[in-house]
């Protein structure tokens, strides 16, 4: 109902009187009706009234939704800016908020498939920004909700990844992979980051470097070692020491390199992932000791080796006491990095005759 003199005038009068109840009634008259010529001609000095009239005129359309949102936002700002006597503003706010929601639900329901197809790219852009925002706010747990929705949409064929712009895909897969790295899901992270790297153009060196920062630790955990050339080309020489130490089982060097790179790795968010590579280094150390002992021993002694050389190696490499060494060996046996068993009473470690050291990829996710 536009009272005497048009909607806008009535709106302004009721605001001056701080009459929230009557204002709510006035706003309700715009639902399911069309503005009269008088309402449209009424000059609107008040920007909120103008936005409501615009929404009213546009009806149940995306333009109407936009105007309704505009009105709600401005009303909210006005509410927050006022220092006193704001309670009367709540009732109109209820209507403005409800109207916006109802319009959105209505528009979403009608012609949804075409609408959805049109907006899926925009939705993914917003998802990427949300992921960045949550990361910067330190609310990594919120990323899971966004990624679950994206994952479900992908499974339900709501969008075809092949048809999406590559820049969007690289960003999405990179952020997804990064989140998975931080969550410790190494295999899934490796998959997403691989996809990001595959799509990322060769000339986008900085982006490729960023992807590899997270991808290389994942690959190392899965037993795949990068070449020196790859590290050098992508400005990741800082990882050279860690890669070499892991591959050769040089636990001492691994600890030194980890300490040296600690700041950088923490800043990247990969410290805890890289730290877990130590178990790979331990496994390689055990394998080296085993191989050296095999050369010195004969027959059945090759598989039934004394604990002392392992204790010495661990003590030399990582200041481990004999008990610590036993615990580490037990851990390696449990995760499947070493196949065998221990005997404290007999001071022996007995290795399996077949494949005493299974490939890293077969047990790395258990570590």
């Amino acid at each position, binding site marked *: 109902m536009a009272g005497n003199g048009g909607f806008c005038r009535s709106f302004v009068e009721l605001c001056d009187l701080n009459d929230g109840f009557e204002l709510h009634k006035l706003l309700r008259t715009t639902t399911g009706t069309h503005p009269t010529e008088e309402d449209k001609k009424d000059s609107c000095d008040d920007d909120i009234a103008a936005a409501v009239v615009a929404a009213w005129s546009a009806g149940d359309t995306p333009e109407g939704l936009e105007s309704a949102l505009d009105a709600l936002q401005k009303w909210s700002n006005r509410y927050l800016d006022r220092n006193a006597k*704001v*309670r009367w503003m*709540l009732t109109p706010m209820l209507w403005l908020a409800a109207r916006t929601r109802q319009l959105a639900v209505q528009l979403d329901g009608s012609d949804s498939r075409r609408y959805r197809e049109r907006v899926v790219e925009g939705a993914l852009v917003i998802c990427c920004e949300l992921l960045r925002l949550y*990361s910067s706010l*330190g*609310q*990594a*747990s919120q990323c899971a909700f966004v990624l679950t929705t994206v994952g479900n949409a992908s499974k339900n064929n709501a969008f075809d990844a092949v048809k999406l712009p590559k820049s969007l895909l690289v960003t999405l897969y990179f952020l997804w992979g990064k989140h998975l*790295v*931080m*969550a*410790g899901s190494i295999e899934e992270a490796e998959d997403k980051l691989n996809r990001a790297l595959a799509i990322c153009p060769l000339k986008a060196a900085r982006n490729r470097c960023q992807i590899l920062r997270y991808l290389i630790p994942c690959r190392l955990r899965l037993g795949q070692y990068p070449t020196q050339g790859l590290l050098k080309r992508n400005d990741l020489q800082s990882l050279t020491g860690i890669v070499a130490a892991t591959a050769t089982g040089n636990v001492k060097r691994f600890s030194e390199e980890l300490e040296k790179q*600690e*700041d950088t790795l*923490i*800043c*990247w*968010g*990969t*410290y*805890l*992932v890289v*730290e*877990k590579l*130590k*178990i790979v280094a331990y496994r390689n150390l055990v394998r080296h000791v085993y191989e050296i002992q095999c050369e010195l021993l004969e027959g059945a002694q090759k598989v039934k080796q004394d604990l002392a050389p392992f204790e010495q190696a661990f003590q030399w490499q990582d*200041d481990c006491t004999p*008990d*610590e060494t*036993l*615990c*580490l*060996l*037990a*851990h390696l*046996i*449990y*995760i499947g990095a070493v196949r065998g*068993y*221990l*005997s*404290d*009473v*007999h001071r022996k470690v*007995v290795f399996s005759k077949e494949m005493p050291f299974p490939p890293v990829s077969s047990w790395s996710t258990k*570590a």
Partner: protein
Amino acid sequence: MVVGSLREKCSAEEAQSRQRERLLDPLEWRKGCSLQRPEVDFSLATKKYQRSSAGKEFLPEEVRPPDICLETMDFLIDSVLDADDAQDGLDGLFAVTPSLPQIYSYLHDRCRAVRMDLHLQQPWSSRTQEFVTCHEYCLRFEALSRFLFSQRLKTTNAQRGDAGATPSDHYDERLGLQAISQTIDPLLAAYQQAREEGTPFENEPFVQRLVILLLLATSPDALPAHLAALDRRLVGHPLVREAIEATGHFLSGHYVRFLRFAASDLWASLVLVDLADLARVRLLWLRARAYHKAVGDRWPLKQLAKLLVCDAELLRHLLVTYKVEVVEEPEAEAVLPRKGAWEDHPLFCEFPQTAGPFASHAHLWRSHRLSVARRRDAVKGLMDPTEHGAEKKGMRQF
């Protein structure tokens, strides 16, 4: 901008109002007053937490400035925290001798009121030492309470008939963690602001260390993002570095080193007590799994106790819980079950995800002698680990 002008722990108006409405806490009663019609002791009354609501305005005369907030916190910690111990030289201060849960409930509310007063006076209040000190006290208090009231302590003490924390509904771990979170956020923001202005607060490294340990104990998934957001100068501080390395040790399965860290200072012990128990159980499980079951094996208890960083009594309790036989002659040894005797044995089931019915709180209580006085010292920061201690220890010396 609000500048508080209330120069007392509690305004006379509020105290009298609560007296009329019978909303006084027993810790605010005047000694000797009738229990049916309690009267307020103005020297004991402290401002109660009031939830803010839309439209509510806080007047400056209702808000305490930072220095009075700190005075209030000092009073709460020095006089109220240990009020359950009548022998602690506080005879005559309170009308009743409260239980520990009652003290927690009271302090939790009054600390929240202090934080509310400080929050209302932001942004200027967050630049003050008083703001930071009050929040540090609150954080230590809630972290200590989390330990004191953990379920297992209640169960243990109830089973043993000890005096001490009794089962109560005054502590909810979820609310306790919420209080910790509500304390940490403004505290870290104040630290960051001070660092950016070139005047860092002295206790920041300890608090950052405590936050890392709390995250490890309660939300390890949030750790990578939290660590990534740390200032690089902090990452290099010995106290923070130690905590980061300890998280790496636990998450990568290096439980021996983790246990040594967890036993290195009081706060590590208190915050990580559940994870330390889990680490002990997992170590026992891993070693049992690595042995050939046809042979069976024996471990000297002394050696095992050193490995698991626990005393003999606690170790025996652990072994009994996991049905491991102990023989006393010629020296005390744990005996692993042989093949044929180990089906469904607890040591050979799934990899432990919890410590199970294994009590170490009582042990910790005794071993640290967390007496009433030390409770006070702990909250006031007198038992915080120091940078020099961390440098001297170094993880590699273990």
